[in-house]
């Protein structure tokens, strides 16, 4: 009887140990949920692997956590969107150098009832002020991610510290972009999100984009090779190959060609 179970087990264990064909060379990229949830990686990475034989393993977490993981040496490449934090990462010697890769923009989405009356505004700081005045519910990532950092900069410009209203109209979900969109739309709150995640998000309900087009909402993505002098395990060669490809003509073209519902999600801007 027990023998039967063991045989069944060994079958399961045995047949799957040969599961996906794995290349000898791989890199771990610490990145953000927006690049993953938008589908960009699934579109782009197989092309890179085909050309180079290098498998890219993406760990998609918030920018804050991605940077912390990379500071522990858990990854070869950092691909996130929080320029000041990225520069600090390089300055402190964790990364070799930072390069612009692409950008998109943030938008503020909200319910059609628009309780703060911000629809159509192009000044994000003004819009946030109106939300605060109306005490209209606002769902924040609250997770130190790139989006969260950008949102906090805008609140600062507006001269408001929303965290003093935490738990009232200002609600921090402490989760990823997708989870915050799920939560925020369910509670009728305004949410600031990157456009790529919003377009790819499938549970929009009747939500619409309320605020867009403010230069302040510009969202720059950067890429950094984790410093191999600091962490001996870093696969610097393959990591650099990936970065070069990303910044080169081919990678940039592929980024530009990625569309969802006919809309371009990311705009390459490597120099």
């Amino acid at each position, binding site marked *: *009887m*027990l023998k*039967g*179970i063991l045989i*069944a*087990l060994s079958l*399961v*264990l045995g*047949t*799957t*140990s040969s*599961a*996906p064909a*794995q290349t000898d060379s791989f890199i*771990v990229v610490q990145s953000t*949920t927006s690049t*993953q*949830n938008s589908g960009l*990686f*699934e579109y782009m990475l197989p092309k890179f692997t085909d050309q180079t034989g290098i498998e890219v*393993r*993406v*760990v*998609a977490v918030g920018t804050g956590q991605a940077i912390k*993981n990379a*500071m*522990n*040496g*858990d990854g070869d490449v950092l691909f996130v969107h929080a320029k000041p934090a990225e520069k600090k990462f390089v300055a402190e010697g964790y990364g070799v150098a930072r390069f612009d890769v692409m950008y998109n923009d943030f938008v503020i989405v909200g319910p059609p009832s628009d309780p703060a009356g911000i629809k159509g505004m192009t000044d994000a700081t003004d819009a946030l002020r109106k939300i605060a005045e109306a005490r209209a519910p606002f769902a924040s990532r609250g997770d130190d991610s790139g989006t969260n950092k950008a949102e906090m900069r805008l609140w600062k410009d507006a001269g408001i510290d929303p965290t003093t209203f935490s738990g009232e109209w200002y609600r921090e979900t402490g*989760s*990823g*972009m*997708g*989870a915050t*969109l*799920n939560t925020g739309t369910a509670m009728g709150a305004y949410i600031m999100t990157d456009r790529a995640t919003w377009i*790819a*998000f*499938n*549970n*929009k309900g009747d939500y619409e984009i309320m605020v867009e087009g403010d230069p302040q909402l510009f969202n720059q993505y950067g890429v950094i090779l984790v410093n191999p002098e600091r*962490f001996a*395990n870093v696969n610097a060669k393959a990591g650099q190959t990936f970065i070069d490809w990303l910044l080169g003509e081919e990678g940039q073209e592929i980024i530009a060609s990625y569309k969802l519902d006919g809309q371009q999600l990311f705009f390459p801007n490597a120099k």
Partner: protein
Amino acid sequence: MQDFASSLDRSIGLIISGDAELWAIVLLSLRVSLSAVVIAAVIGMPLGAALAVARFPGRQVLIVLLNALMGLPPVVVGLLLYLMLSNAGPLGMLQLLYTPTAMILAQVVLVMPIIAALSRQVVETLDREYSEQLRSFGLSRLGSVPTLLWDGRFSLLTAFLAGFGRAIAEVGAVMIVGGNINHVTRVMTTTIALETSKGNLALALALGTILIVLAIAVNAATSLMGGTARRLAHA
């Protein structure tokens, strides 16, 4: 709610279409969780049995502790293991982070206390019946552990299944130490979490349905085998 109806359609469609990607994820889930439970059983069952038969000061404290460990939060386990396996951590040189092995380790830590605690109960009950006879055979308390484990094998199946249930349903720990890397460490639960965050609720629910069916299938198969054998042994 339309999500329910469409997700049912979807899960049936997914199963029928034999989607290769889906099957790889299902098999990885099974491989990780079954390996973890087998390892946890190999450690936890003798440990629980030893705790059932041994008499020493502090035993009661240990039992309470073990029972409490059954409720270990997966996220905490994941975090602790991440700190150990991280390249900045003490076990970084093993290069296990973001591998299925790390996920197996995390689930072993989660499941082992459950199997050990339940085995302790099973063996303690059986020992009440057996202890005089086994002592008459000349076995020491610890020496009787293999006999008690073997003769308690049908009841111990329940401990095994409880451990499997915990492992296959767990998301917090494998997400952190596995990284939910596509084709490498993406399992059923992390896929469900990912699809939920993408707002693909119907697909997430479809995958959840498959996970539940899978759990039921493993339980049914094990119980069936165990039940038949038990009837044959009149245990």
